[in-house]
C-alpha cells in the first residue's frame, strides 16, 4: 500500500517518523506476575502495544485425545480485544488469531522441557489490549516471561521482534504506519541462549543482502529484549535473594 501524500516514513537524515534510527527499538516495559489467579503472567508495553499473557499448568489435557503420553503439549491462544484497534475487532478466534496462536505455541515448545510432564498441557493465553504493529512478537515475548514466572522448566527463553523495509531501507521494529505502508515485514523469534530461530515469517520481498541486515538487526534486538525479560523476572523476585543468606533450604526441597 502506498503511503498517503505527505507522509514520509523515513527522512533524509535516515530518521523515522518517531525519530528512531533504523536499528532502534520502540520503548519496551514489562512486568512479571501481574495476575493472581494464573500460575504465571506478564504485562508488556511495547510502543503503543499493550499485551497481557497468562500461563496455567502443567494441567490435565481436555479434550483427552489431544494428550501426548510422552510429553506435555504447549497450547497457546492469541486473542485481540475488541477495543484493541481503531475499528472494533469482532471478538473470538478468526483466521489470523488461529494462525498466530498456532505459531506462538510452536515457537514456545522447543524451550519447554515437555518430557518432564507427560500427558499434561501447558496453556498460554495472550490478550492484546491495544495493538500497534508487532503484536505477535510482543505476545511471544510476554508469553515467554509468563512461562518462566509460572515455574515451568525451560532451557532458555524466547525473545521476538520484527524487522522490515520502508522506502528501500531495512528497519527494525515497525510501527503502525511503517507496517501498513512499508514494503516488507519479517517477524523473528530466537532463543537467545542458543541462537536457535523458533519463528520466522516474511511478508513482502527482501534481497539477500537486505535479508541479512534485517536478520542481524533482529538478532541483536532479541538479545536486548532478553535482557529486559530477565530484568522483569528478577524485579518481581528481588527480595527472594535474601533467602539464600538467611538459611539453608529445608530438607524437604524436592529434586527434579
Amino acid at each position: 500500500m502506498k503511503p498517503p501524500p505527505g507522509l514520509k516514513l523515513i527522512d533524509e537524515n535516515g530518521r523515522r517518523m518517531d525519530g528512531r534510527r533504523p536499528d532502534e527499538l520502540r520503548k519496551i516495559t514489562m512486568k512479571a506476575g501481574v495476575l493472581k489467579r494464573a500460575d504465571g503472567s506478564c504485562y508488556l508495553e511495547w510502543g503503543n502495544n499493550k499485551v497481557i499473557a497468562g500461563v496455567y499448568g502443567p494441567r490435565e489435557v481436555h479434550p483427552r485425545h489431544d494428550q501426548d503420553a510422552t510429553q506435555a503439549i504447549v497450547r497457546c491462544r492469541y486473542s485481540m480485544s475488541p477495543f484493541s484497534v481503531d475499528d472494533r475487532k469482532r471478538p473470538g478466534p478468526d483466521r489470523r488469531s488461529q494462525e498466530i496462536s498456532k505459531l506462538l505455541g510452536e515457537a514456545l515448545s522447543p524451550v519447554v522441557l515437555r518430557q518432564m510432564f507427560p500427558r499434561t498441557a501447558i496453556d498460554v493465553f495472550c490478550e492484546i489490549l491495544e495493538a500497534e504493529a508487532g503484536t505477535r512478537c510482543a505476545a511471544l515475548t510476554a508469553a515467554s516471561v509468563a512461562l518462566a514466572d509460572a515455574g515451568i522448566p525451560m532451557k532458555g527463553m524466547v525473545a521476538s521482534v520484527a524487522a522490515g523495509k520502508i522506502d528501500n531501507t531495512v528497519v527494525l521494529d515497525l510501527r503502525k504506519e511503517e507496517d501498513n505502508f512499508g514494503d516488507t515485514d519479517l517477524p523473528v523469534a530466537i532463543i537467545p541462549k542458543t541462537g536457535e530461530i523458533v519463528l520466522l515469517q516474511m511478508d513482502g520481498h527482501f534481497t539477500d543482502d537486505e535479508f541479512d541486515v534485517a536478520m542481524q538487526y533482529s538478532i541483536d534486538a532479541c538479545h536486548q529484549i532478553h535482557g529486559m525479560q530477565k530484568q522483569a523476572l528478577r524485579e518481581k523476585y528481588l527480595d527472594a535473594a535474601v533467602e539464600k543468606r538467611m538459611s539453608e533450604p529445608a530438607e524437604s526441597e524436592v529434586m527434579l
Partner: protein
Amino acid sequence: MSQEQREEAADIVVPGDLLDDSGRLKPGFNTYKEGANIFALRLGVRQMRGDQVSVLALSGRYDPQRNDLIIGTILEAGPSIWIIDIRAPSPVTMHVNDVPWKVDFGETTKYMAPGDTVLLKVAFVDEIKKIQLTMKDRACRKLSGGLVFEVAPSKVPRIIGRGGGMTNVIKTATNTRMFVGQNGVIWIDGEPQDVALAMAAVRKVESEAHTSGLTDKVKQFLQEHRRSGMEQLKRASLEKEWSSWG
C-alpha cells in the same frame, strides 16, 4: 535499583542462565548440564551446597516425588479404587491393596468416601509420571475435623522450616495439630480461634518466605495475637480465606 538490590538480583536466575562454566561443580535441583556448563532450568535462587550448584524454585505447581507425604481429597470411590485429587496435574487412583485395612469389593466408601481428606504417601512415580499412592505408612491416615487450605507448593519448605522448626513453633504457640503436605495442602485442627491464628501465621510465612529471621518474626506475631484481638483476627483471616475461594 540500589546497589544492594543489584547484588541481590545477581542471585536470582532465570531459565537458561549460566550457573557454572568451571566444570568442577555438579548439577543439582532445577539445573541442566551441557558440556562443562551448568544452566538454570527454572526461575529461582542460585544455591551452592558443597560442590553442587542448584536452583531453589520460586514458583511452580506440585510435582510429585517418591516418598512425599501429601494431603489429598477423595473425588470418587469405585468398587476397588479411590480417585484422589492431590493437586498434581491429574487426579490419581489408589487401589484397595494400598490401604492398611482389608476392604471388601464394593465397600470402599465405608472407609473413605468422596469429600474425605486423607494423609497419603507417594509410593512411586515412574518415568511417564504415573503415580502410585499408598496409605501403608505409619503417618498416613484419614483426617477428620480440622481445616484444610492450600499454599503455593514452592513455599512448603519454608513453612515446614529446617527440621520442621517453623511448624513446631506454630503448633506449640497455637496449641493445634497441624500437618503440611508437600503438595501445599495444609491441615490444622484445634479450637476455632487457635486454628485461625495458626492459619494467619502460615499465611504470614507464605507471604514473607523470602525474608530473613522469619521464625522470630512468626514467634513475635503469635505472641502479639495471643494476647489481644484474637476474635478480630479469626474473623479477618476466615473472611479473607472465603473470599479467595471466590
